[in-house]
């Protein structure tokens, strides 16, 4: 360890504690709200720590009963899984061959800028025609229709991340196999994809997080339990007449679990994927 003056060491620890508290406090408060009793949450002065632990809201949201908060929450959870899942699979099917081609062939390399540009387009520039298109196809308020719309974000995004993933697989390995007489589809399936598997997994999980997070299109193109996603359901709760803030907090905790778990488990890969994909073309 390098020798530091005492003052500097103290400064480092103080700053680290301030940073940790600033990051953690809002999370801790969200969890506390979800397990505090309603009287504790509305007491003045506020009870910071719950007098009793109340897990009833978790039970309520995770149990199906006719016309209950649980029914609405669980159907939106299912819709979010279906829409994001379908869109990610579609994005990988389109993105893997395209990203490989862009990574290996200089002549088509400029296509990656089409993908990057498409990804950056504001959703408001596409919203009205997409609305009319879905309306004409009878796909408004439909998970398949919404998944198709999510492809406008996820297909270019995934191709972009995958391109830098394939850049990391040496092309010499492919040429060697090619000389040995292997066909391209064999090389891709047996050689390149297994070698690029970590990058593909990272891109897929990343895309899943983006799909899970999406709100604007879901707000516009869904209207009830048949297609409404989790983000819209939570916005409904937050903007509605619900007086139990703990219930809103509970929905927030549950909706955050999948992306937070993905984030923590894959943190190293995610940050690497993000910096490589985003920082270099």
């Amino acid at each position, binding site marked *: 360890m390098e020798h530091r003056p005492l003052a500097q060491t103290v400064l480092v620890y103080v700053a680290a504690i301030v940073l940790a508290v600033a990051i953690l406090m809002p999370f801790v408060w969200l969890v506390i709200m979800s397990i505090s009793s309603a009287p504790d949450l509305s007491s003045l002065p506020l009870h910071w720590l719950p007098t009793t632990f109340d897990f009833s809201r978790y039970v309520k949201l995770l149990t199906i009963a006719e016309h209950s908060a649980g029914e609405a929450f669980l159907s939106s959870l299912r819709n979010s899984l279906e829409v994001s899942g379908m869109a990610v699979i579609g994005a990988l099917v389109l993105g893997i061959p395209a990203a490989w081609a862009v990574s290996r062939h200089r002549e088509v390399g400029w296509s990656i800028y089409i993908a990057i540009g498409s990804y950056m387009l504001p959703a*408001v520039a596409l919203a009205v025609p997409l609305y009319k298109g879905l309306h004409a196809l009878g796909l408004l308020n439909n998970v398949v229709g919404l998944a198709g719309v999510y492809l406008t974000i996820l297909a270019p995004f995934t191709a972009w991340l995958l391109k830098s993933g394939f850049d990391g697989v040496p092309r010499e390995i492919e040429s060697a196999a090619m000389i040995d007489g292997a066909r391209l589809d064999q090389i891709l399936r047996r050689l390149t994809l297994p070698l690029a598997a970590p990058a593909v997994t990272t891109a897929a999980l990343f895309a899943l997080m983006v799909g899970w997070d999406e709100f604007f299109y879901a707000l516009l193109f869904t209207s009830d339990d048949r297609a409404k996603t989790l983000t819209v359901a939570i916005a409904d709760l937050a903007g509605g007449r619900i007086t139990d803030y703990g219930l809103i907090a509970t929905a927030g905790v549950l909706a955050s679990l999948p992306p937070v778990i993905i984030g923590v488990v894959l943190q190293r890969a995610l940050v690497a994927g993000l910096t490589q994909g985003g920082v270099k073309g």
Partner: protein
Amino acid sequence: MESRWTTLRAWLLLAPLLAVIVLIIGWPLVNTVIFSFTDAGLVGTGGNFVGFANFAKALHSSAFSSTFINTAIFALVSVAAEMVLGVLAALLLDQQFRGRTALRALMILPWALPTIVNATLWRLIYNPQYGALDALLTQLHIIPAYQSWLGEPGTAMVAIIVADVWKNFPLVALIGLAALQTVPHDIKSASIVDGAGALSRFRFVLFPYMAGPLMVALVLRTIEAFKVFDIIWVMTRGGPADTTRTLSILIYQEAFSFGRAGSGASMALIVTLIITVLAAGYIAAIRRNTLSA
């Protein structure tokens, strides 16, 4: 071994993605351009050609210009704060101290939290009757009575920016930290032995390594901030008195609440133009990184 066949093969592999981009991005974009010259509504077909009337109306309306200013303020202030706090946090996380690994792991949490949950969480924190912020500040005797952070024109935008910065500065910190870890160790220690002050050490030794990645993060965050919709929709819906209404929210209202699709399309194209300029800056920045790496 590039031959005509391998080039054709590359195009065939790209074709499905490009076809889908043309179909679900290119075609809608063309339609938005067409709508922007008409008085088309959200339902029904066509609309009459009105030339540049929608653009002229948008650029002359006080609603559009005040909304543009709101958006610019949100983007500038939140992105500037995220960059400054992100760089400071990166410099801290590059130091050696106990608990460093745990603190680095914590940084991923706000970033992984869904935007809507973040907005909802801060809306609860700012709640004027039972919110944690009012409780904390009154119990510490910093403010005398509960106040409505999101309900007052003077504080609503600041409150939203704080929520946005909290979620996004950790990402800048992680990108900055990754860049700092590419600085060779002997360069770091040599600059200490040479007795460089903290500021000049940052300016001349560390910052050159961080500049490229940070530039990219800066442009990406600015583009995202310029498109902002979700966090504001959940926290204030653009209120109070339209003080937090941004361009995406104005366009949403114009096209989908009032059904004026043509007028909304013209505003959307103005935003697209601004984003295009920023995106061109982004592509220039990554090309420079690729060349220098």
